[in-house]
């Protein structure tokens, strides 16, 4: 019982803090929108890091799972917004339905994660990268051609329910989950798989089950992130979920240091704010709105450039595999460690590996 109370402690702290922030930012809609964009990206980066960083697999289709959550959650909210829960005040009813649509969107994304992950994670090699990339594109093409999802124009009329409070509560949940997975025997098993899959299997770790489980968890949170996203954009368009979005998340976790949750957070914040900052600076310096608009177009090349510079200067990413809580006074005895971020083991279809 005491354990469960301790388990809920982070939320006991987060809820009043976030509520206060929500009240304080009531007059700053621009700041709120910015914080929502940052929050969604943190959720995406931290969850993908469970797969790519901790488990050492290589998924590059996170936007696909985000899309599933966005569309499923969005449609669900649109449908239920006409009804509401009669015995509750409208605001409460809205938030309950919102939470429900997030969870359902996440669950459907998790289901897709299972279906995609199980066959590709059983095999060694780069299958996951290929399959996730394909999955992301398939999802996008499917929604583009489905009446229910508004085709290429997108799903409009999703009720605006995301608040700073709810978005950042999701951030807290994903960070707590990631940290607890990392620190538990399951996290150790994931790290072991990253280090040496054959040895992990030989030590009694059901590597397939663990890989699938971490992938399903990541897919779930990508779906929830999609739901959060859908409920502050008035319109959910397929163009938000291209492989460019997936690569953006990959860039975030590689830059932050694969395997480091705090690294993923810092990189997500920085890379989200960077274009915004650039836009403001350009606008202030040149006074030219058109030029500032161009920032969106140079965002990806800019990320690419940043990543190249970072890989030259610090190939293990900003944080390596370390966490904020491992540093300074909390520091455990552990040197920084660079798992090479972009390489992965055997090529698909190879003969049985010679094990010695």
């Amino acid at each position: 019982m005491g354990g469960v109370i301790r388990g809920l402690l982070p939320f006991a702290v987060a809820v009043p803090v976030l509520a206060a922030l929500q009240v304080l930012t009531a007059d700053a809609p621009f700041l709120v929108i910015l914080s929502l964009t940052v929050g969604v990206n943190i959720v995406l980066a931290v969850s993908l890091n469970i797969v790519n960083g901790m488990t050492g697999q290589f998924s590059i289709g996170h936007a696909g799972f985000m899309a599933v959550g966005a569309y499923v959650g969005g449609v669900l909210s649109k449908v239920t917004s006409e009804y509401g829960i009669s015995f509750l005040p409208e605001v409460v009813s809205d938030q309950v339905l919102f939470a429900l649509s997030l969870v359902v969107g996440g669950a459907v994304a998790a289901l897709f994660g299972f279906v995609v992950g199980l066959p590709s994670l059983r095999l060694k090699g780069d299958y996951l990268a290929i399959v996730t990339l394909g999955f992301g594109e398939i999802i996008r093409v499917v929604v583009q051609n489905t009446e229910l999802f508004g085709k290429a124009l997108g799903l409009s009329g999703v009720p605006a329910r995301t608040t700073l409070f709810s978005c950042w509560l999701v951030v807290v949940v994903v960070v707590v989950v990631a940290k607890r997975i990392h620190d538990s025997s399951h996290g150790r098993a994931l790290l072991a798989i990253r280090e040496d899959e054959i040895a992990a299997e030989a030590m009694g770790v059901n590597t397939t089950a663990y890989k699938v489980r971490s992938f399903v968890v990541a897919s779930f949170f990508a779906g929830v992130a999609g739901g959060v996203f859908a409920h502050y954009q008035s319109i959910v368009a397929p163009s938000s979920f291209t492989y460019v979005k997936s690569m953006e998340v990959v860039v975030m976790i590689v830059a932050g240091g694969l395997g480091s949750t705090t690294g993923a957070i810092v990189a997500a914040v920085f890379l989200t704010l960077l274009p915004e900052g650039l836009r403001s600076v350009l606008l202030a310096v040149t006074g030219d709105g058109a030029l500032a608009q161009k920032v969106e177009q140079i965002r990806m090349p800019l990320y690419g450039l940043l990543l190249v510079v970072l890989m030259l200067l610090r190939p293990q990413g900003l944080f390596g595999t370390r966490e904020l809580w491992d540093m300074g006074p909390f520091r455990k005895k552990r040197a920084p460690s660079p798992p090479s971020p972009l390489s992965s083991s055997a090529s698909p279809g190879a003969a049985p590996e010679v094990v010695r």
Partner: protein
Amino acid sequence: MSLLKVHRATMQFGGLKALSDFSLDVAQGDLQGLIGPNGAGKTTAFNVMTGVYRPTSGAVVVDGERMNGRLPHQVNRAGLARTFQNIRLFKELTALDNVKVACLADDRPPSSPFSRARIDGLRRQGRFAPAHALDAWGNYLDWWRALFLTSGYRADEAHIEERALRLLDVMGLAHRAGEQARNLPYGEQRRLEIARALATSPKVLLLDEPAAGMNTKEKAELMVQIRRLRDEFALGVLLIEHDMKLVMGICEQITVLDHGETIAVGTPDQVKKDPKVIEAYLGVESKELQA
């Protein structure tokens, strides 16, 4: 009582028969050797026993359970643990975490419906499928307990830590607990691999050239240690070793492989007089053998 039984296992890679008609029987308390020149198929035999390779034909039985088609982790859960000729530690993890990984799920309290004792009990009754299911479900529940930091989960973690530290201590590595595995000297990495294998609570321990790369003194110490482990943990031990003298000195029974064929089985004295063995080890090693 036989804990590991290999029955006429054959392993074929394309045209190459790396292992043919290989049979072996290891009981509790045994200390057996598997020797042979380079490329004889010794490591392949280990891979077949531990489920890394699926034998072309033949059977592997661990503590009464047929392992054919089982995955390596299932073979390990059934009671077979190994080390690797080319050390395969989790390099970036600490020595302690290396051992903790292998402690997985073995430290649930005896009262737990998913305890190792209960699972082993089912195995003894020959009910292998429920044993596997119980193991898998216990593991799945652990995941949720970890997410909610239940007190049971924290007790398990404490127990795992305690046991991992004890195993490091047994292998003389307690002072290295917080160090990254890749930073340990070679000999200690080999010992850490043994500690890690022991953490899975094996019935039979397979050691693939555990003394490779060690100096003579280290080797002698290791052999004494292996004998002690066998007694302390009530294991059967099967070891591959290149240093003839060591194997002859420590093992009670030896199987000799050459080109995948079993050319001799017997006590050290019988094996070293066998003409086929002498022929296989022509040259320096055959003199060594008779010394």
